[in-house]
């Protein structure tokens, strides 16, 4: 970590945020009947997994399907990069036709990933409704008219800054930092 890095969520706040988001979902979805959770690959899926675990912790009787969605083939910047983008795995072992979908990503910034995600999701059926949950919402820099329904934390940042979400299962510690790349 460098001196210019700023911690947006420390491990304690991180945990509280996950808990709050999970309770918000319970408030709106109740028993989660006909509801599925889909995390966008790669890092949105970590959040989806964590939210799913938390929901089960709160109410072990809940039966909520969890899937991961890769958006590579649906991106609008393919052929605008030097090398082809290598895809991740999509694992959706259920049909989302007529289901209520909670789409999850770690950071919402330009909105382009979510746009691709919505497109990619439609290959698995026509959902009844889709809501978006993100851990970090970077405000003011949207390229598309896309907003999140559930937000962990709003962040004001400039374009050159980056947000990094660390997960304890892969990055040792749960935390979110804002930094300026060299």
């Amino acid at each position: 970590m460098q001196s210019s890095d700023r911690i947006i969520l420390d491990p304690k706040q991180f945990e509280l945020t996950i808990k709050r988001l999970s309770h918000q979902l319970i408030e709106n979805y109740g028993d989660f009947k006909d509801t599925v959770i889909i995390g966008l690959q790669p890092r949105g899926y970590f959040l989806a997994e964590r939210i799913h675990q938390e929901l089960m912790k709160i109410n072990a009787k809940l039966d909520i399907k969890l899937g991961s969605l890769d958006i590579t083939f649906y991106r609008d910047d393919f052929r605008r990069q030097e090398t082809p983008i290598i895809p991740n795995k999509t694992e959706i072992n259920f049909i989302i036709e007529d289901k209520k979908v909670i789409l999850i990503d770690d950071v919402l910034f330009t909105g382009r990933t979510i746009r691709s995600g919505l497109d990619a999701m439609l290959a698995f059926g026509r959902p009844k409704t889709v809501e978006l949950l993100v851990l970090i919402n970077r405000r003011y820099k949207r390229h598309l008219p896309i907003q999140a329904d559930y937000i962990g934390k709003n962040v004001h940042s400039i374009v050159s800054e980056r947000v990094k979400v660390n997960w304890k299962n892969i990055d040792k510690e749960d935390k979110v930092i804002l930094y300026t790349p060299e």
Partner: protein
Amino acid sequence: MSKLSTKHLLGIKYLQKEDINLIFETADHFKQVINRPIKKVPSLRDITIANLFFENSTRTKLSFELAEKRLSADVINFASSSSSVTKGETLIDTVNNILSMKVDMVVMRHPNPGAAYFLSQHVDAKIINAGDGAHEHPTQALLDGYSMREKYKDLTGKNIIIVGDITHSRVALSNIFCLQKMGVNVKVCGPLTLIPKYINSLGVEVISNLKEALEWCDIAMMLRIQLERQDTKFFPSIREYTQQYGLNKELLDSLSKKITIMHPGPINRGVEITSDVADSNQSIILNQVENGVAIRMAVLYLLAGRVD
């Protein structure tokens, strides 16, 4: 590695082992895509692809066209029998005319070996060789290798025999290159008149007895006799060929282990392979066809390159 080392797909000879792995890994994802309720992705929506077939084809042409459409590319088709080629136009003229209609990629099958390479030197588009004479048929070899990898997961130390008309087969040559790069043992079997004189220079051994060859291998790839490329008689009769080199159920069941049967198609049932073998549960012929679409999607996706 996330990029192919070549600009075109002219033959397996020009690929590295890493390229082959990258194509296989990408094909895994496309195989998943083509098994979804909606099988189309928008990746190549700003690309136009010309399929130029100067020689007949069913499977390869349909497979490429389907792969292109599943990637949302615009497709134009061309068959030489119904074109100005019969009026005496040269290959470069034909292709340049097509390219002036703003085509980004060309998939070409041609009766002359090296036609795809020649084209890549003279026109400004990505070229994919869909078979050039008796030279190479790279996407077929890739889908064959992919189907083997799917069946066996780890192919190290596996033995593959290619049986039949090796001299006139582009599938055989591409497969030899591909399998050797994948680290698999490959040998060929067939009448000596249909085995190229310099096959040993590729490091490939010949087994002339079919039974012996089948006992050696884990996978047998049966090839068709390419009568259209044979200008002289290479063996006394089809009947005699079948007796010596045809695979039937009796022979298959007499082997000490269960081997896997492959065939690139078109099959001449009753000549190189009998129907009960081709349709048996040891055959993965139809898996090869399904994997063909995924492999071709992967190749097109990886070659599409940057918008200028």
